């Protein structure tokens, strides 16, 4: 086995995420490739949550259904993930939680051992120990990491935790040695050099790299992490981060900030985005740039607040009254999350349009190994100009972009207006000019198209079956196709969903069959393709229960479609 999936399952508040954080780091530092993903309920304590940690000797980046090692932390855990438990699943835990005894179940009295080490609260550290032992991690590394992780705690607590880890570690070792569980994973020095980053961190770092120095937002899962991250970097990076009283305040603040010379963003989820729609339209009219991070979760309304979906695509595309250009990114690859979050600021500023970055809970809460993020060549262009006396904010230009002044920089006055306006920015009822300025605004779409992100084609270029995905499904579909190893198949991924890449038609026409995989119920990307190309794709694989696709599921559904075809 060269790729194992460890799942921790228990109640909110039991510390699953602590185990995940520690373990993932330790494993990476030991030379394993790791990936982790979380699913959890909308509650602070109780319920049933789980985290998957994949460990492999080559890069892995997506959620799989299968569980190789399950650590059930309460009595509900077994049932919660029962559908993912196979006959080979190794189950390790307290006697009452492991669900019957078999060759593959191993009783480990975590709490008892923790108590022995000093406090039952250390049970999580015992768990870390067990898994470290099983996975052949050097115990010194565990020790060292625990020291760092708990460095703000009392020495006694630190030592007790090390003791707890040690107890677990020995059990883990023993399982490999005495019980013959051997994962046969190779370590790779390269993994150590990788960065360990989750989607939230990638968005946030991309934003900082893009010059973001203002964020106003209202907390909303799964988008809040970006606000938290930037809030904590306020002093370091000179960022103004303000928790607004509502999403409406948030977007209007950010527009004010961008107007006055900041690079501003908001982070929100569907319901909050809904409240920002009037502000989005304002951005279109003012031609004040803005970056919106739209972290999707299942709707309608409050829906499933802590779950994942790709259900807001067409909403994001057409949100806002009236007509104005926009750009929408939907990264799926870890590097792209960073790159496009950065690019969003550049493009929004350059073309003076709203740039939307669409992610989702799955993407944001997953941790990836990224080989590197090269910022050495980055430089942010300042697109605003120093104004002269006769400055006109909305000068009609060939490409539609009017040089953007900011107040207080230069002699000119910067007048922006939500009403239809003349070149100076003052209210107008000149209806001929109305047509002219609408055209001017819409012309910017051409500039946006010039900077369009290429799609990524994975697999055989002479495909017969083309699988299409966008956003967070990138790794899942890619791995599914890798597994299927079908020479007739290829995968086309869109990291920018609007404007749609002009090669779309060409790609689809080349295929005998095109299947779109998306995490929603109505096949929104397929609709978008049809709206843009007129082509009705042949099939859609949809999922909308709040969970991301598992690799096996994609494989299964693709095979089913292809098989049907054969008949």
């Amino acid at each position, binding site marked *: 086995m060269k790729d194992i999936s460890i799942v921790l399952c228990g109640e909110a508040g039991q510390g699953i995420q602590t185990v995940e954080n520690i373990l993932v*780091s330790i494993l990476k530092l030991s030379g394993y490739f790791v990936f982790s993903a979380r699913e959890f309920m909308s509650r602070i304590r109780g319920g049933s949550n789980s985290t998957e940690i994949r460990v492999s000797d080559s890069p892995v980046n997506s959620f799989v259904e299968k569980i190789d090692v399950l650590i059930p932390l309460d009595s509900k855990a077994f049932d919660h993930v029962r559908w993912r438990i196979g006959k080979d699943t190794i189950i390790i835990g307290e006697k009452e939680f492991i669900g019957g005894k078999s060759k593959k179940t191993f009783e480990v009295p975590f709490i008892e051992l923790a108590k022995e080490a000093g406090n039952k609260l250390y049970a999580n550290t015992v768990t870390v120990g067990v898994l470290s032992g099983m996975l052949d991690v050097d115990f010194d590394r565990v020790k060292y990491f625990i020291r*760092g992780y708990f460095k703000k705690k009392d020495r006694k607590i630190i030592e007790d935790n090390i003791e707890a880890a040690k107890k677990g570690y020995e059990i883990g070792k023993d399982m490999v040695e005495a019980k013959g569980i051997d994962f046969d994973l190779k370590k790779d020095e390269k993994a*150590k050099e990788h*960065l*360990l*980053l989750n989607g939230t*961190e990638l968005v946030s*770092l991309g934003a*900082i*790299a893009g010059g973001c*120095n*203002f964020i*106003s937002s209202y907390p909303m899962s799964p988008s809040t992490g970006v606000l938290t991250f930037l809030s904590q970097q*306020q*002093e*370091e*990076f*000179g960022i*103004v981060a*303000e928790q*607004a*009283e*509502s999403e*409406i*305040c948030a977007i*209007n*603040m*950010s*527009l*004010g*900030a961008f*107007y*006055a*010379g*900041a690079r*501003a963003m908001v982070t929100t989820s569907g319901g909050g985005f809904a409240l920002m729609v009037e*502000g989005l339209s*304002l951005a279109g009219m*003012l031609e004040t740039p803005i970056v919106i991070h739209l972290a999707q979760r299942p709707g309608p309304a409050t829906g499933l607040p802590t779950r994942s979906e790709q259900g807001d695509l067409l909403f994001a595309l057409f949100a806002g009254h009236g007509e104005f250009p926009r750009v929408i990114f939907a990264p799926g690859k870890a590097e792209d999350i960073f790159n496009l979050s950065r690019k969003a600021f550049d493009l929004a500023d350059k073309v003076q349009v709203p740039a939307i970055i669409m992610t989702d809970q799955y993407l944001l809460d997953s941790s990836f190994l990224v080989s590197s*993020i090269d*910022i*050495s060549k*980055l430089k*942010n262009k*300042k697109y605003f100009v120093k104004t002269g006396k006769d400055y006109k904010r909305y000068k009609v230009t060939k490409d539609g972009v009017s040089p953007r002044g*900011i*107040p*207080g*920089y*230069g*002699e000119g*006055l*910067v*007048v*922006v*207006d*939500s009403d239809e306006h003349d070149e100076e*920015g*003052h*209210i107008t009822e000149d209806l001929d000019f109305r047509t002219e300025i609408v055209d001017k605004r819409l012309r910017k779409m051409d500039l946006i198209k010039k900077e369009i992100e290429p799609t990524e084609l994975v697999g055989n270029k002479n495909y017969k079956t083309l699988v299409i995905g966008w956003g967070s499904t990138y790794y899942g579909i890619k791995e599914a196709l890798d597994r299927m190893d079908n020479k007739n198949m290829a995968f086309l991924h869109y990291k920018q969903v609007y404007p749609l890449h002009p090669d779309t038609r060409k790609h689809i026409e080349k295929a005998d069959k095109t299947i779109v995989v998306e995490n929603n119920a109505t096949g929104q990307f397929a609709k978008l393709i049809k709206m843009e190309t007129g082509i009705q794709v042949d099939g859609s694989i949809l999922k909308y229960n709040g969970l991301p696709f598992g690799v096996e599921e994609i494989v299964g559904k693709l095979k089913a479609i292809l098989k049907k075809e054969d008949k």
Partner: protein
Amino acid sequence: MDAKTYDMGKIDIAWCPGCGNFSILKILKDALSELDIAPSELVMVCGIGQGAKAPHYFKANVFNGLHGRSLPPATAIKAVNQSLVVIAEGGDGDMYGEGGNHFLHAIRRNPDITHIVHNNMIYGLTKGQASPTSLEGFKTPVQPGGVILEPFNPLAVAISLGASFVSRAYSDDFEETKEIIKKAIKHKGYALVDLLHPCVTYNKLNDRKWFKENTYYLDDNYDPTDRNEAFKKAMEDEKLPLGVFYINKEKKPFEEQLPAYKKNKKPLYEREVDFEKMKVLIESKKS
């Protein structure tokens, strides 16, 4: 600075002849000129409504945003560039109706902005519906039986929230209002000027006569630092007091407390991303 500095030249002003907004416009220009504020360092932020059109008749930087939403951008503009003088302007419907929540929270933030509410006790631009400040019993096409809601008392609310400067003025009282506005602009922190004015077209109840008969000025030796007293004054509704009701000089402006300015006082637009620091931050994600 000459008040003419703010003149736009020959422009078509969209207000009705006789509207109180004309006086407000003139007073504001005079106040600004006496304070020597250059158009290029001034940002007028407004929403939508008759009063909210004022910034278009003015030489200044203007952010004319959405109906009800001028306080958030005004707060942000000041937070991003503290050297700007920021005034948020709009009507009673705009600020206390659609924008009521921002009113509450802007006060809590206490940015150094001046908040001028053109309060004509009616929705002017949409042709005469009741506004939050319309009096009970006031009849309009949408309230044919008369308003049944209690009028919104912006001063009492502002005082209850600890606004750092709270005042009420009346458009026809040229000198008094100019002085109030000057004080408001000079005040370091959020300053409310609830500026009563007649809407000659739609509000036939609260006309010039009514304002004259139903307002009076706070006594010269009124002490605006006593919050409970200020509240009592704000509650008066037989006759509406005019003047500065409440001042709290202890409160620090929002933007001055922001961590982004701890080490660096420059406006944000002058700064660059510190990629060196970013490298360190990114590297830290290796372990």
